[in-house]
């Protein structure tokens, strides 16, 4: 059985950052990812990132992805692509279907799970028709494969994903017939919301989608106004002609591997669902198993990269590649950067929720 000091699951922003830190410290690392290309969802993010300069603010996601790949290559990190991790045992054996055909098992001293997230759905009449898709799916088609998924698109959800993908649909040449938001206020950052508004896209606040209309695929959408109890108001329906309905209604962490590994969980609505409880070193309740990125709570790619670094540094430290003093300085620095990303009107909620998870870890340790 092949042995590695660290096995990282997922080659997205969190996983690659974690692997880079481990390799930089001197550890022998393997990264496994089920996709044929590394980078996770970074390569569809053609918008400029937020935060400060040290968080690469103003740089488009695609270029951040390229930088990460270059660092990974420079450090000669072993990356298995097309290789799905399907199990983690208590003794840290990692089961992988290598190259989609060969089942194999590798032994790890430390595991960093950076499995990411999946998009949420909402169910409505007609939602299974071709033409209803995740906003991320539309983004992948446009920005990774240069294929326009539809010509007239209705966006459900006005959060960052909803407004950013709407703008990218306009950039790619589609028409966005509207952005529907069930809440009374819009959910996205002002900079992105303003861009689509300036482009003339109508917002329907206090509305939801009631029905997707069409026989073989979407031809129109019916939206309806909601009352203060989130119930449909009869008579307030509007029909919008559209060939595509995109759903941008949040994300859920992909936690299956952490469950299999025996990690303990807590529920956090603000972070997207059940989250593996972890400490400030990103270590879960299972010793030697770390998490980073969206699996530890839905945030942004910039946060995922810092968390990945934090997990990587912590894992390398626990393997003896840093002494306590060196590790403390590096870890403090990562926390400083994370705190900068978790402040302000949008960030502070995530900061509070993350603190609750850290407290939960302390509670569980003392049980």
């Amino acid at each position, binding site marked *: 059985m092949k042995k590695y000091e660290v096995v990282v699951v997922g080659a997205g922003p969190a996983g690659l950052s974690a692997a880079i830190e481990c390799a930089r410290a001197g550890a022998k690392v393997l990264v496994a990812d089920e996709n044929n290309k590394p980078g996770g969802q970074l390569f569809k993010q053609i918008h400029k990132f937020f935060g400060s300069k040290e968080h690469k603010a103003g740089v488009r996601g695609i270029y951040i992805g390229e930088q990460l790949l270059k660092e990974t290559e420079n450090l000669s990190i072993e990356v298995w692509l097309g290789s799905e991790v399907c199990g983690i045992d208590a003794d840290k054996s990692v089961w992988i279907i290598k190259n989609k055909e060969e089942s194999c098992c590798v032994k790890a001293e430390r595991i960093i799970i950076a499995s990411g997230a999946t998009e949420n759905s909402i169910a409505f009449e007609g939602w299974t028709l071709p*033409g209803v898709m995740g906003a991320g799916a539309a983004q992948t088609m446009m920005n990774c494969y240069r294929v326009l998924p*539809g010509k007239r698109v209705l966006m459900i959800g006005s959060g960052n994903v909803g407004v950013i993908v709407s703008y990218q649909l306009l*950039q790619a040449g589609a028409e966005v017939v509207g952005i529907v938001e069930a809440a009374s206020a819009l959910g996205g950052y002002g900079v992105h919301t303003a861009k689509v508004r300036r482009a003339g896209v109508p917002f329907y606040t206090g509305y939801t989608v009631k029905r997707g209309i069409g026989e073989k695929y979407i031809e129109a959408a019916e939206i309806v106004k909601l009352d203060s109890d989130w119930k449909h108001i009869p008579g307030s329906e509007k029909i919008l002609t559209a*060939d595509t309905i995109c759903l941008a209604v949040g994300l859920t962490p992909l936690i299956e591997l952490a469950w299999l590994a025996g990690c303990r969980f807590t529920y956090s609505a603000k972070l997207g669902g059940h989250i593996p409880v972890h400490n400030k070193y990103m270590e879960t309740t299972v010793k030697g198993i770390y998490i980073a990125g969206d699996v530890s709570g839905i945030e942004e790619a910039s946060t995922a990269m810092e968390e990945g670094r934090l997990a990587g540094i912590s894992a390398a430290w626990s393997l003896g590649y840093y002494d306590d003093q060196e590790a403390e300085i590096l870890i403090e620095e990562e926390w400083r950067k994370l705190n900068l990303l978790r402040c302000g009107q949008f960030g502070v909620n995530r900061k509070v929720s993350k603190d609750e998870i850290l407290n939960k870890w302390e509670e569980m340790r003392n049980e």
Partner: protein
Amino acid sequence: MSRIKEHPILGNEIRRKKVTIYCDNREIKAYEGEMIAAALIANGIRTFRYTKRFDKPRGLYCGIGRCTDCVMTVNGIPNVRTCITPVEEGMVITTQEGLGCWERSGDNEKI
């Protein structure tokens, strides 16, 4: 629905190597390295399969290999996730009915 020829961030489309694939006997030009789902949507094909019990159409949904809504029969193998499977020269793709069936020589047993 169509290819994006010009793009303010990604730039103009660069020439890529073409491959020929077949969907329900229709010849389709695809680009090397792109996923089957992308090639089909670019050529106006949106329905990838029909469900087993109610014969309802399904197409691309999550685009990252999680939801399995976009599965089709590819080179005789049913339930292939077309959003994460790259095209290959001469690939034969069929709209899948229900759970599909294995199309190997001398073995057409429905599953």
